[in-house]
């Protein structure tokens, strides 16, 4: 019996807790990509850099707060910085909308042209961000680091396996749940949210119903700004901030959005967790897990790993490609909000 509990604790420690946190970050990112896709109808390659921008602002604000001695110990100062970085990201997006995206939206260009435009924005932002903050890794997870430490857990339960939950992981999951609930409430219950869904469903009919497209687009960018800066900050809090990582993050995020069904918010959230959990399950070495469960003489010798850990990122691309080929509309049949 104790072996079963140990095995489950092992999975919880190495797969469930980290994947919940990573999946939450992906889900928020994918939600942002999906909203742009549903309303403006293009795949926004710049989304990773928008997340990076939000994180950068968070870090600047944290540095400012730390230098004047403001903190909310035991919680990380990042939570206090979030409102500022959200505001800054929204302002950035509205400027980008006005100067870049709006023109192509009005021209009703092909999605692929729009996507190339977003590549240009991605380049621009990447350069801008790296120029401002540099390329080195920055950690900003101050405050209490752990909610439960592995050693404490072992002591408390007397198990052989430990379970550690970092503060950042818990914060990530909680903030994600709150934000996702807010977004779904907004889209399904408010007049403005419904008008966004209507616009995404049938743009021409939305115009005929007197829905102002300009307003819908601005609100979309505002929500995307909230999602992107929160997702970026949470990711940086959890794993450290390194500007070029956010470029690589775009693909798993696209994978999450497409696996779930691009344009479908439920799909985006589900896709985020699907990607995170598959990465963890496929690259986990099951040796210890099986040792607990199997009789002694059956205990495995090798690592019992489906793919080596180096391929972690590649798994999301494989899932992405498989879904694009087998079911391009995604698991949740996306197209509109």
């Amino acid at each position, binding site marked *: 019996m104790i072996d079963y509990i140990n095995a489950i604790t092992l999975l919880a420690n190495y797969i469930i807790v980290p994947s919940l946190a990573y999946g939450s970050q992906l889900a928020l990112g994918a939600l942002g990509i999906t909203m742009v896709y549903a309303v403006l109808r*293009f795949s926004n390659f710049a989304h990773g850099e928008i997340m990076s921008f939000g994180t950068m602002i968070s870090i600047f604000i944290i540095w400012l707060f730390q230098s004047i001695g403001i903190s909310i110990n035991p919680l990380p100062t990042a939570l206090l910085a979030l409102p500022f970085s959200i505001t800054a990201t929204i302002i950035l997006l509205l400027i980008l909308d006005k100067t870049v995206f709006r023109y192509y939206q009005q021209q009703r260009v*092909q999605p692929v042209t729009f996507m190339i435009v977003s590549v240009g924005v*991605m380049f621009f932002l990447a*350069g801008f961000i790296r120029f401002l903050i540099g390329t080195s890794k920055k950690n900003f997870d101050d405050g209490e680091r752990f909610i439960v430490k592995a050693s404490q857990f072992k002591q408390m339960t007397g198990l052989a396996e430990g379970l550690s939950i970092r503060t950042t992981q818990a914060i990530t999951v909680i903030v994600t749940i709150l934000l996702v609930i807010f977004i779904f409430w907004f889209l399904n219950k408010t007049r403005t949210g419904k008008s966004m869904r209507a616009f995404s469903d049938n743009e021409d009919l939305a115009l005929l119903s007197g829905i102002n497209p300009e307003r819908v687009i601005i609100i979309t960018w505002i929500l995307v700004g909230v999602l992107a800066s929160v997702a970026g900050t949470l990711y940086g809090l959890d794993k450290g901030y390194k500007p070029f990582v956010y470029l690589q993050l775009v693909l798993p995020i696209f994978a999450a959005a497409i696996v779930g069904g691009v344009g479908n918010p439920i799909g985006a959230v589900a896709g985020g967790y699907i990607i995170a959990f598959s990465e963890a399950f496929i690259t986990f070495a099951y040796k210890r897990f099986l040792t607990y469960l199997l009789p002694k003489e059956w205990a495995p010798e090798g690592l019992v790993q489906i793919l080596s850990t180096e391929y972690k990122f*590649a798994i999301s691309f494989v899932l992405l490609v498989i879904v694009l080929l087998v079911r391009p509309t995604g698991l949740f049949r996306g197209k509109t909000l």
Partner: protein
Amino acid sequence: MKLWNQKSNKKVFLLFALMSGALLIVGFFQSWNLMLAILNLCLISAVMSLGVNLQWGYAGLFNAGIMGFAALGGLAAMLVTKAPVIGAWHAGGFGILLGMFILVVSAILAYFVWVRLEGRGKKRYWYVIFIVVIGYIISRFVLGPAIISIESFEPSSSGYLGGAGLPVLLSWFVGGLLAALVAFFIGRITLGLRSDYLAIATLGISEIVIFIFKNEDWLTRGVKNVTGIPRPVPYEIELQSSIWFQNLSEYIGIGVIQASSLFVKLCYTSLFLSVLLILLWLCEKALNSPWGRMMRAIRDNETAASAMGKDVTSRHLQIFVIGSAIVGIAGAMLVTLDGQFNPTIYHPLRFTFLIWVMVIVGGSGNNFGAILGGFVVWFFWIEAEIIGNALVQILTLPLSDSSSLKEHFLNTAPQLRLLIMGLVLLLFLRFAPRGVIPEKTLRKLSE
């Protein structure tokens, strides 16, 4: 049939003359060595953008996996030229071959089952998954020990199987062929997708390819790099010790060391230039042939073309394979120039999207435009570092020299070139979407 009117001819000539002028300025004011180094990479970039232009400019296919194909070309260059590591082959060669055989057999079997069970609903998914998984597990049992023994064979110097030890120039063909082969499979499965999904899918697949190169050390030495790839041109040391070259450098009046390095670079330049010119000639031929006209007709109106009985997907596959092959050749050339295969350099932001900027800035649909774009964008990519630095110097003038802020911005100034490239791309898309040398329209061609 007159292909070009005088005016656009003159403009192209003028633009290329300006580009040469810019390179000469670098030669005179910075150094000739730097100028040739830039020129050689300009030529490789131009070949790549020629390939991308085939796909995007002729057919409207957005291939975001350029770095994957370049890496395949690079791999070919490495595998063709490096000498085989006999010890490693003895240690695990058989296991690798057997493992690969099992993988290929299970893939063929899976394909066969997939085709035979057409229309049997969900069942065929499960059968195919089952075959692939079983094949993978069996191959793992064979490959695992083989890989370990190969990678532990003299890990500091080899630890991989090595290559075939064949001439370098052959590797450029092989690079093209390998890229074409992979492009065929990628194209077969992705070309039915919507244009923006095609971009994401190709980007994803190329990342997978590069991931494999980074991690399968038995094949590529992974991040330990394969260095010392044989050259198609003489080595500087050999030149410096040969009498005729010493005489030559004395005659020209520059030091023998500098002369040897210039000479080697010039050899590369002439090789790359020949490749570029041959490919350009072929691309122009293709563009103005009925095939090229049909390609563009398909691009401009896919529905109408398919209604007229044109097989759009197979035409797209053709051009996807050809364009990728050209990128593969360029990839092989790049590795030959560097003399090493390093899978970590194939970074999508730095290169894939840069090639896209080249094609769009140069003029998509026009081969001369693509080549000019390759030159201009690569030139500014290198020189933007200097421009960015100067810009920061000016902007931070009010700050004192010891200011840490100034130091920080001087350190991060090279990043400004990303910003400049993004800005250039955005400005072109908005104000000159047809590029510097726009596509010759079909109507003009028939005049």
